[in-house]
């Protein structure tokens, strides 16, 4: 093999010399033969002629000798490339159209594939990341599929583990990082000391934790995430050893992590379990129901996921049987072992695959279009090719030349597409970030480049094959017809027709997809959120514990509300544990809390009903303009000395009281032993996303149920202008209260719709491209057929057919293609739209209006695409046609 490649290079390098030598060698032979012939008495000319004849002609012999050489195919390729380049430059319009079409198709595919590869396909950047798993405790009958672990539960499963080579815990806390005159809230992941060893992560700087760091008396230490190190410590290379003041203790930075996707959420810093005050408290450790941890594991080598799952299912039933009070049998308690890889990405998987399919469709349509353009061009080359075939060019050689040309086109398109891809990628990464922390791994790198190259080559061959195949047939025809006009064969007409129909069908499917998304997005935008998002600002404020304590917090909340209310431009302000469209709530959905209605006890071993719980200050409903439907709102008199009261939303009243009046009844929520009297019913609000039905919701008052750390403010000014005033007010109250996540509600509402917006936009772009490409395809085929049939149409006119009738006839033939394609497309779309159904809001995948509108749009565009070229008919002169006869 190596020798052969060397020979090829040698041949290419010495081509000119070899040619000269071949010349001389054959010349020598002919000279010697000529001498002999002359010796036999021939005259000089005849002697030379006979000598040349004896070898069968110099040129054919040379060609045979060249064919014996190794580099021959490469040389032929170079010739084809040179020829192809000449042809492409000679037809700049055709080449540009083809290259731009392909660039759009390939660029879109490159951008989307780089996201799909980075997020779904690339191995996790952990050592042997495919073996990492996340454990989920589940209460199937209570519809809880991801219950956190308590310390006792973790220990139970560590004892019963046979299939994991390591089990580690993880939970998140936020702590205050105290500066001189500032405080900053730091998202902290609290993990087992061997957490990074089990995950197989090597630090970028310094070291990760060792067992000694987790001792009670060990000095407090931190590891920084790559992102936090970059954004908040400006990538300081000497960060290791630096001291941070957190939790009123100095913490020493041990190391910095490499950029890795974090699960279940992104943390700024990591610390070992012994340093978390909650995690290390005896009360937390001793309570089976005190749950907050996520558990990771690494499946042992040689053990399958199914085996690990089976083993932990057995362990779960043992644990469940051992503590029937904690896991009532009817709750359906079990344990699920889920690969980390899928956990990280499953939310975005469907969207990414739909986009990849969309981009693939666009490329297919582009391919069909370029194939049609090439077919049209080949038609003009027929005579040239026939002549070349007659002169001895082999059929394979001619086809190879056509393929070379189409691959050159597709590679040029691919290169241009590669230049376009990064622009699209920026938008896509933002989109992917909403689904997965792996979005940071999206780059155009080697695998993506390989993909682009392969796709370019494949498209080149794909759209080159059609004209090549048809060439095959008429090259043989060319031999049969001695001279004269080569009429284009019926089969090639059919091929072009099929290409157009396929284009139309695929475009139609894309248009339906986009149409459904647009309709769904339109409905989403008309959703009444149940409150007034304008002129609202929200923020999170985080006091430190200490100096604050449960005893001093009520006074702090009073102080905050008093100060904020007094600010200029503030109409009203409220404190709440959360608020509608809170980004955290959009991801997690409502947090379930078990509740009980007084007088309706649930049997002890049965799952209790669940509701979301929000703790709000009295002005909350008024501030966000959530209407009170019945009863009363909270007042300042509902304090710790008064009767505990609750307000529920209409969804809860409907679900739990079904017609009866809940006001005056008492409920208790969560682990609270106290009964709360229901005093009011408020309207439903789309708390967890405009596309989600309102969840059952109980509200309790901050004065009775405790501290909350979100502030919602209604302003009379521009809410963006109000934000700095709010920050300043907190700084005045206490500079060591961290204020962050300052956002206007309108911004949050806009952001909450980012995924459907980007999906809709991308699908609309794909569909627009598809429509453009396929209608230009229809127009091109129409134009060609009019040109080809000019003669026939001219005769028809000479025989008395009206121009209008002829135009009608031509347009009708074009429309048949569009119509057949549309019918096939309707079938395909009806099948494919079902995969979209999870992404649609209040829109059925077979939405009649969408199908009708898209069909109408498509057929209109197709009619225009047919009509414009058909008008060329008016340029046909019947006399010309007659003269040619």
């Amino acid at each position, binding site marked *: 093999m190596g020798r052969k490649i060397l020979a090829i290079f040698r041949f290419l390098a010495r081509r000119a010399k070899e040619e000269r030598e071949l010349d001389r060698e054959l010349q020598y032979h002919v000279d010697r033969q000529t001498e002999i012939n002359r010796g036999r008495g021939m005259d000089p000319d005849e002697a030379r002629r006979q000598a040349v004849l004896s070898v069968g002609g110099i040129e054919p012999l040379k060609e*045979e000798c060249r064919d*014996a050489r190794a580099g021959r195919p490469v040389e032929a390729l170079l010739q084809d490339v040179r020829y192809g380049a000449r042809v492409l430059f000679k037809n700049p319009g055709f080449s540009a159209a083809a290259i731009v079409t392909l660039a759009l198709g390939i660029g879109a595919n490159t951008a989307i594939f780089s996201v799909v590869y980075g997020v779904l396909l690339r191995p996790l950047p952990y050592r042997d990341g495919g073996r990492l798993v996340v454990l989920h405790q589940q209460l199937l009958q209570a519809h809880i599929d991801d219950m956190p672990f308590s310390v006792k539960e973790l220990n139970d499963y560590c004892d019963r583990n046979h299939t994991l080579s390591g089990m580690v815990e993880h939970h998140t806390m936020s702590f205050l990082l105290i500066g001189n005159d500032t405080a900053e809230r730091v998202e902290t992941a609290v993990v087992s000391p061997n957490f990074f060893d089990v995950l197989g992560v090597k630090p970028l700087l310094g070291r990760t934790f060792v067992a000694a760091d987790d001792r009670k008396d060990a000095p407090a230490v931190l590891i920084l995430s790559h992102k936090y190190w970059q954004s908040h410590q400006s990538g300081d290379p000497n960060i290791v050893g630096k001291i941070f003041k957190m939790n009123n203790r100095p913490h020493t930075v041990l190391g910095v992590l490499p950029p890795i996707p974090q699960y279940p959420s992104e943390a700024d810093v990591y610390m070992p379990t012994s340093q978390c005050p909650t995690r290390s408290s005896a009360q937390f450790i001793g309570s089976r129901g005190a749950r907050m941890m996520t558990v990771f594991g690494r499946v042992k080598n040689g053990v399958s996921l199914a085996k690990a799952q089976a083993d932990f299912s057995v362990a779960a039933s043992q644990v469940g049987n051992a503590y029937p009070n904690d896991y009532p049998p009817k709750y359906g308690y079990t344990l699920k072992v889920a690969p980390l890889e899928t956990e990280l990405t499953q939310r975005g998987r469907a969207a990414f695959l739909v986009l990849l399919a969309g981009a693939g469709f666009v490329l297919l349509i582009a391919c069909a279009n370029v194939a049609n353009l090439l077919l049209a061009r080949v038609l003009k080359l027929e005579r040239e090719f026939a002549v070349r075939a007659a002169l001895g060019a082999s059929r394979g050689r001619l086809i190879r030349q056509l393929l070379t040309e189409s691959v050159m086109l597709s590679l040029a398109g691919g290169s241009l597409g590669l230049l376009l891809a990064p622009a699209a990628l920026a938008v896509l990464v933002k989109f992917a970030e909403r689904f997965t922390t792996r979005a940071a791994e999206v780059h155009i790198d080697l695998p993506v480049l390989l993909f682009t190259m392969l796709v370019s080559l494949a498209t080149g061959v794909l759209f080159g094959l059609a004209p090549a195949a048809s060439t095959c047939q008429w090259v043989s025809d060319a031999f049969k017809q001695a001279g004269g006009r080569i009429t284009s064969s019926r089969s090639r007409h059919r091929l072009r027709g099929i290409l157009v129909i396929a284009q139309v069908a695929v475009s139609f499917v894309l248009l339906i997809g986009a149409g459904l998304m647009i309709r769904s997005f339109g409905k989403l935008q008309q959703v009444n959120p149940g409150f007034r998002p304008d002129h609202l600002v929200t923020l999170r404020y985080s006091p430190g514990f200490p100096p604050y304590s449960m005893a001093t917090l009520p006074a702090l909340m009073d102080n905050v509300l008093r100060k904020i209310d007094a600010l200029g431009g503030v109409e009203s302000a409220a404190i709440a544990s959360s608020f509608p469209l809170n980004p955290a709530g959009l991801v997690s959905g409502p947090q379930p809390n078990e509740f009980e209605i007084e007088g309706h006890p649930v049997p002890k071993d049965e799952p209790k009903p669940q509701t979301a719980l929000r703790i709000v200050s009295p002005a909350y409903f008024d501030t966000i303009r959530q209407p009170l439907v019945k009863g009363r709102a909270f007042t300042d008199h509902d304090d710790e000395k008064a009767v505990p009261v609750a307000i529920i939303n209409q969804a809860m009243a409907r679900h739990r009281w079904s017609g009866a009046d809940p006001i005056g009844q008492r409920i208790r929520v969560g682990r609270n032993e106290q009964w709360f009297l229901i005093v009011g019913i408020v309207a439903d609000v789309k708390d967890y996303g405009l596309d989600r039905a309102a969840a059952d919701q109980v509200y309790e008052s901050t004065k009775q149920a405790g501290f909350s750390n979100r502030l919602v403010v209604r302003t009379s000014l521009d809410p963006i202008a109000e934000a700095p005033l709010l920050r300043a007010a907190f700084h005045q109250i206490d500079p060591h209260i961290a204020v962050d996540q300052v956002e206007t509600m309108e911004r949050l509402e806009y952001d909450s719709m980012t995924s459907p917006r980007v999906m809709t936009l991308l699908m609309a772009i794909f569909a627009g491209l598809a429509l453009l490409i396929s209608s230009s395809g229809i127009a091109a085929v129409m134009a060609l057929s009019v040109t080809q049939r000019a003669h026939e149409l001219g005769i028809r006119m000479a025989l008395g057919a009206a121009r209008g009738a002829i135009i009608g006839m031509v347009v009708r033939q074009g429309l048949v293609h569009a119509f057949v394609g549309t019918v096939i497309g309707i079938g395909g779309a009806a099948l494919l739209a079902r995969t979209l159904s999870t992404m649609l809001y209040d829109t059925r995948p077979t939405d009649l209006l969408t199908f009708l509108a898209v069909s109408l749009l498509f057929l209109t565009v197709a009619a225009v695409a047919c009509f414009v070229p058909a008008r060329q008919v008016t340029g046909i002169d019947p006399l010309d046609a007659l003269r040619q006869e």
Partner: protein
Amino acid sequence: MPKNKSDLLQGTLDLLILKTLELQPMHGWGISQRIQQISEDVLQVNQGSLYPALHRLEEQGWISADWKTSENNRQARYYALTGRGRRQLAAEKENWIRLSAAVARIVGA
């Protein structure tokens, strides 16, 4: 690796060329004359197929080419057997003898 199987005609011409070059390096013209002489004009080598065969054998690495002054004082392209060519010749010779013996047995039977 010497090729043991080649179709009869092409293989035969290859064998004849290799055998002719076994004694001394020779140019194309000389090879054609020599084959004709030794076979007492039984084998007329087709001049048209001799040169492509020489180029193919050179490409295989069985013979090498060099420009030398010929017997009539002109520059000619001389071909010589390489080490690999010698091994190939031995293999083809054996193959030919086996084949011709078998054919002779059948024809003579």
